[in-house]
């Protein structure tokens, strides 16, 4: 499906936080700065290194699209997801 990130290497911007992305922005997850159960909860939802996320609605909580589904996400957690923007 969306496989553009595979070759996106040089088209990506430096790392930023998922929380700070504007609506409509799409990015690749680089890593998570959270441990334990919350990390696992993010990962099973697909917020995990390598996945592509798209911001559907910003704010706290925000809505992102990962693996074809909408995920409601608290700002506190969105601030732990480091992403690199697709251009």
């Amino acid at each position: 499906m969306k496989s553009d990130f595979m070759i996106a290497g040089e088209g990506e911007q430096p790392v930023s936080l998922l929380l700070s992305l504007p609506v409509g922005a799409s990015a690749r997850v680089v890593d998570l700065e959270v441990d334990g159960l919350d990390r696992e909860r993010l990962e099973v939802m697909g917020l995990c290194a390598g996945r592509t996320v798209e911001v559907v609605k910003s704010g706290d909580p925000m809505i992102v699209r990962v693996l074809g589904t909408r995920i409601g996400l608290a700002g506190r957690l969105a601030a732990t997801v480091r992403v690199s923007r697709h251009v």
Partner: protein
Amino acid sequence: MSEIPLSAAVATCHTAASSATAGATTVVLIGNPNTGKTSLFNRLTGLRAKTANFAGTTLERRVGTMHLGGRKVHLEDLPGLYALHAANAEERIAQDSLRGATGSPAPAGAVVVVDATNLARNLYLVSQVRQLEVPVVVALNMTDLAGREGLRVDAAALSRELGAPVVPISARTGDGLPALQQALAALLDGRAPLPALPVRLSACGSCGGCATSSVRFDWAEDVAAVASSGAPRLSAERTARLDRVLTHPVAGLAVFAALMAALFVALFALAEYPMGAIEAGVSALGGWVGASLPEGDLQSFLVDGVIAGVGGVLVFLPQIAILFFFLSLLDDSGYLARAAFVMDRLMGKVGLPGKAFVPMLSAHACAIPALMSTRVIEDRRDRLATMLVIPLLTCSARLPVYAMVIALLFAGRPVQGGLLFTAAYALGMVAALSVAWLLRRTLLRGESRPLVIELPTYKAPSLRNALLAMRDRGGVFLRKAGTAILLISIGMWALSTYPRLDDERAAEIRAAEGDTRLQSARLEHALAGRIGRAIEPVFRPLGFDWRIDIGVLSSFAARETLVATLAVVYGVGDDGAASDGLRDALRAQRREDGRPVFGFATSCSLLVFFVLAMQCLPTQAVMRRESGSWRWAAFQFGYMTVLAYCAALVTYQGLRLLGVG
């Protein structure tokens, strides 16, 4: 049915295959939330399902029976899960149960339910289950929906990638179920040789960690891309449109408030009739038994203990059934996730998760179903905090008490009455939120677990599921809480009956002062009356006399009995409880110094006490069951009693200081 592509190699690693033919056969149903798993379970097992707990846990599973070509198979419905990771208690239990590590033997097979419109996400769990040593059939659900929207899923290709039979079904319409049953039967009979794990899938690794999760998701996305074409555009667009309103910080909250108000009104309006019928039926039965049996201990035990106790159980049933009916509809439609989403920030201010709101609203009907519905809160500490404050919210059993106090204070003045009524509700809510806030700074220190929630595509809810949920929750309540309520009711009956007044004295009182006075003399003579007198010094600072104490004591079984008990102790007779007779009798009561017993200060203090006190042993029984320990139930009782006592003390003494009697 569609062909089951099988690799030529006969699996050697599937040791569970040999056990499939022996003994009682259990098949596990597993899948992500929102995949229609419950619908499929209901379809396969019909009306024969039961809810049971995993041994030693509060985690529930549903167990039903289905017939597969003459063979009886137990179908076990695991909770909806996204993955099988060991760190999450629920997922660990599910994993153990698939491996046969929960005490019961390993299942002979697993049906993994997959949402065809959400393939990549669902395949993650499939890959994990596939790596356990249990034969797997994949039920590819919602194929009707996918087809309508131009999404095509190639079951044969998917089957090759998973190394497991894949059967397209629609749990909603029942399409494809015979094929699913055939595939399952073939698997259990050992007729179909078990396919080996495809190389790519076995490379995914089985431990957690983001590195392996990442590989697994790569695999899932690739397989989804290979096996499906097109995308469910229509429902995606509809969901996007609806979410623009329903998750909006202002409009979303407004819709939520309106929906919850409607739910609340429906709960009361619809439950009123069956509750009335139950009360009338129970009282008719009591009257009939009372008239058919000679007066004495047996008659009193049956009428006031057993029948009244059964009535006390049944009367909760309509609200519980209706609540779970509507919650199931809201959940099925996909809305409940949005409710948690819009409430998360507001509830977060007192340290509760967004998912706590709906249970807390339900608590205004009855704390028992509210405690049961906190199961949606996945974090244990969040759930405990919510459960601990739920009984502070004004349940419908408090309403007769509020009504009585308001009638005492403001009869014929509806505005003041209405204000006091509102104040009582508000006091409950403020207390619940404050206690939650306090708990998150002390005993359950920390913030609520931050929100991560799937917002599923909106769907038309299933009436069938809602009716079955209603029946299921009602059944759990009757079995688990019902027995406790009945026993408590019998216990309270014994307290207010024994020791008995001797016959001579009873005859004297009846001759001199009549039946009504005899009723109150009996209660005073019984243990309840003696305890009431003994604890009078404790409650005197709140403005209660020993007769009110008997009422307070008796209302530990159920609050609404206060009104009936006061009617008996003040000699109106329990028939007089409903009429103005009680109000006038209470108003006429005088203390030794000539002041009225039910002055403004005492009435307010009584009201405050009833708003805040834990006077509901059935709730305590459910609290123990849901929290898994008497410790939390005891703590809840303790803090609420202290809170109620102190608040009533401040109310009474404060009003007295201000010179209000």
